């Protein structure tokens, strides 16, 4: 049995320890926000935070998440109450087809929460592991930068452990 915290709640997984974290989240915990785009760690659609660090959940066996904190897009906000970052994506066209969006949001959040610089080059660097085929990235970068500027205390978000 594997114990982990998912979006702040303790969860248990009984099953093959090498089952992909992505499949455990999607199939066992019914958290389908993280998507499978390529299954080989290239597209970043499955990005989740493991102890605050962005990882490709398609490359992580669930046993590697034992005793650790996992955060998915579902932890960020709800349609009725979007987080600042989500609201910024909505206003600035950061989401089109939406399939890369959960991974993109999670990666952007990790960048800002860890004190990453809110400038164009740093944001592009932070999102370089997340492919988007719709936007050409400009509206995504603008969304992240606007959220960072609007947030007086970006450090308010939980900081990852060192």
């Amino acid at each position, binding site marked *: 049995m594997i114990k982990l915290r998912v979006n702040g709640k303790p969860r248990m997984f009984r099953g093959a320890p090498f089952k992909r974290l992505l499949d455990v989240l*999607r199939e066992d915990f*019914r*958290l*389908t*926000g*993280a*998507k*499978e*785009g*390529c*299954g*080989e760690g*290239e*597209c970043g*659609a499955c990005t989740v935070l493991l102890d605050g660090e962005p990882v490709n959940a398609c490359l992580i066996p669930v046993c590697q998440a034992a005793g650790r904190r996992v955060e*998915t*897009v*579902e932890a*960020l*906000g*709800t*349609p*009725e109450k*979007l987080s600042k970052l*989500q609201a910024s*994506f*909505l*206003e*600035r*066209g950061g*989401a*089109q*087809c*939406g*399939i*890369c*969006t*959960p991974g993109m*949001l999670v990666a952007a959040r990790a960048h800002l929460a860890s004190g990453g610089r809110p400038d*164009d080059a740093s*944001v*592009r*660097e932070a*999102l*370089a*592991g*997340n*492919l*988007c*085929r*719709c*936007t*050409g*990235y*400009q*509206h*995504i*970068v603008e969304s992240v930068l606007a959220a960072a500027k609007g947030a007086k205390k970006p450090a308010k978000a939980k900081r990852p452990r060192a």
Partner: protein
Amino acid sequence: MAAMASVGTSALRREGPEKLTGRALYLDDLDVPGAWHGVTVRAGVPRGRIKSVSFDPSFPWKECVVVTAKDIPGKNVVTLIEPDQPLLADGEVRHREEPILLIAHPDRAKAYEARSRVTVEYEPLPPVLSLEDSLSVKEKIFKDDNVFKSFLIEKGDLKGGFALADFVVEGEYRVPHQEQAYIENNAMAAWEKDGVLTVTGSLQCPYYVVKALKVLLGRDESKVRVIQTVTGGGFGGKEEYPSMIAGHAALLALKAKRPVKIVYDRHEDMAATTKRHPAVVRHRTGLTKDGRLVAQDVDVVMDGGAYATLSAVVLSRGTLHATGPYECPNVRVRARAVATNTPPNGAFRGFGAPQTLFAAELHWERISRALGLDALTLRRRNLYREGSVTATGQVLRESIGASECLDLVVKRSDYEKKRKDYDLWNADPAKPTWRGIGLSVCHHGAGFTGSGEVYLASRAAVALTRDGRILVLAASTEIGQGTNTIFAQMAADALGVPSDWVEVETPDTHKVPDSGPTVASRTTMVVGGLVRRAALELKAALDAEGGRVPKTRADLKKSAAALCGREPLRRFEVRYEKPPEIVWDEGTYRGDAYGVYSYAAFAADLEIDRATGEVRVRKATTAQDIGRAVNPRLAEGQIIGGCAQGLGWALLEEPVYKDGVMANAQLTNYVIPTSLDAPPFDVTIVERPYSRGPFGAKGVGELPMDVPAPAVAAAVRHATGRLIATIPQTPERILAALAGPEDA
């Protein structure tokens, strides 16, 4: 007081909150109780006759359902244009990824295992794997000449035109396949309930799927229902292939008597589904010494792959755009789409036009060198303007923003100064890079070609329910481009109500009429026009009922109750009507090929590392005349996103074919642009309204794809002095060109 106009504002994406919170359910996210997993056994040889199919006896086959061509109750064909592509090969196999049989199993891993336990034996036949081999007809794989379709456009007197020419400039240009690379792979689920077969999934064209299923299953439309799920990108890649997967899922579900889900993985999606057609385009162009076009002779060949599928219409659009947006009195365009034993090529944003426009635009670089006139001046001398006559004899009457777009791009990119500055930079051997800036100008016809919209006879409706809901009913799919949002905006403005009063129904063929496919830059202009007209009919009914359009939701409820009486809703449906001034002759390819064209100009400003040949696009500047931006933010999203795909095609993306199949069918080695590859974009939306478009709107979806590749190639030439007449312009190609002589 009427409600504030919504058209022209950047209303927020309708389904945005769901997409931003992980609540939007794509097919793979749906919990379909009791569903089995379907997999596809594919040919594995490019051409051959099936001798036998055997099943490993050590595998517990009784746990599975297996479907072969014999299980098809109707006709074994994926209905599209020509009835030539089978749903499951039965007899001859014509490409490596051709489906042979289907397996469903309750457990996904076991389904894949079962697939590996099937052996198909073939009598091999010699395959035709390249466009050149197909043209040489060493092997006949389609009729006598391997030609799926050919077109000829003639204007004026070509011979006479060349006789007037001071210069004749020739060039050959080549473009490769391109993979759509939507991030959501193809996925579909099917089940039967109460005699109705329902298919749901990721798709662009719900009624294409209905038409295919009717023929496959031998059922009428009331027994087949297609519902779009949230779709993670399409770009043309989900225009036709979903009909194939829907057929597969349907057959498995009928035989298994339970729901079946088919979700492709990335490798299968890339290897098996359609790509952009590769093409070879030859130009022979006559000009006077002051740079005026007097003769254009263009020859186009596209590789259609193993079945006709959409090749005829892709070729048609390519042919009709082959001259570029320039007026020439004497023109001939000859075009052919040929068969090869490779997976069929199909729709990809631009649909044949990016291929021929790459050639037409880059050819100005050759002409420029031959005439000693710069490519900007040459374009300005020949560009379409009011009153210009196209190669098909179409007189351009209105909404022609080509020159305005070009002027804006030249100014905003600082083109003329940078041409000079970069010449100095490049002449300095101490600089680590070469720099270049290149231009393109393209046109793109909105809506179906020629009489296409007349044959489609699309319908859309607006309904008012008794409890006061306003619904837009259309089969146009939201695939990321913003259909839901702009339909609500246009319906609201036609009605004179706030846009949040309007709901847009999910495309479900048992609820929405056939609005035609979500393709061809037609959703805003054509279907949006129908939505507007339907909304105006509802408005007229409300006016007649209450003397005015309701001002509050309570008012609306009262009016709705009065208007509906005992009915649950009143539905106002309209059908496409051809504007009388549009005249097209399919037989001679003369007349108004498109009701109107959108226009775009683009400047690629780039630098190349002198040691590695690596290209970095420093800035992309574009201006695009789309008639009217219904939603400027969404329109800009289309422009930047489409241009990024064009830059990918120009610099990075190349499906490598080996033995008739894509050898790099992975995102690891088929490289699309990342946030670090994409340049900053400077976008100007030009609005030259089209009198027949809703609120003046023309098409925007495909146009952005046309412009980047030729501008990049022109910029690389500026930087290196070498014209590389193909793409992608990879470091390898650039270094190889640099090893050769400078352009003569």
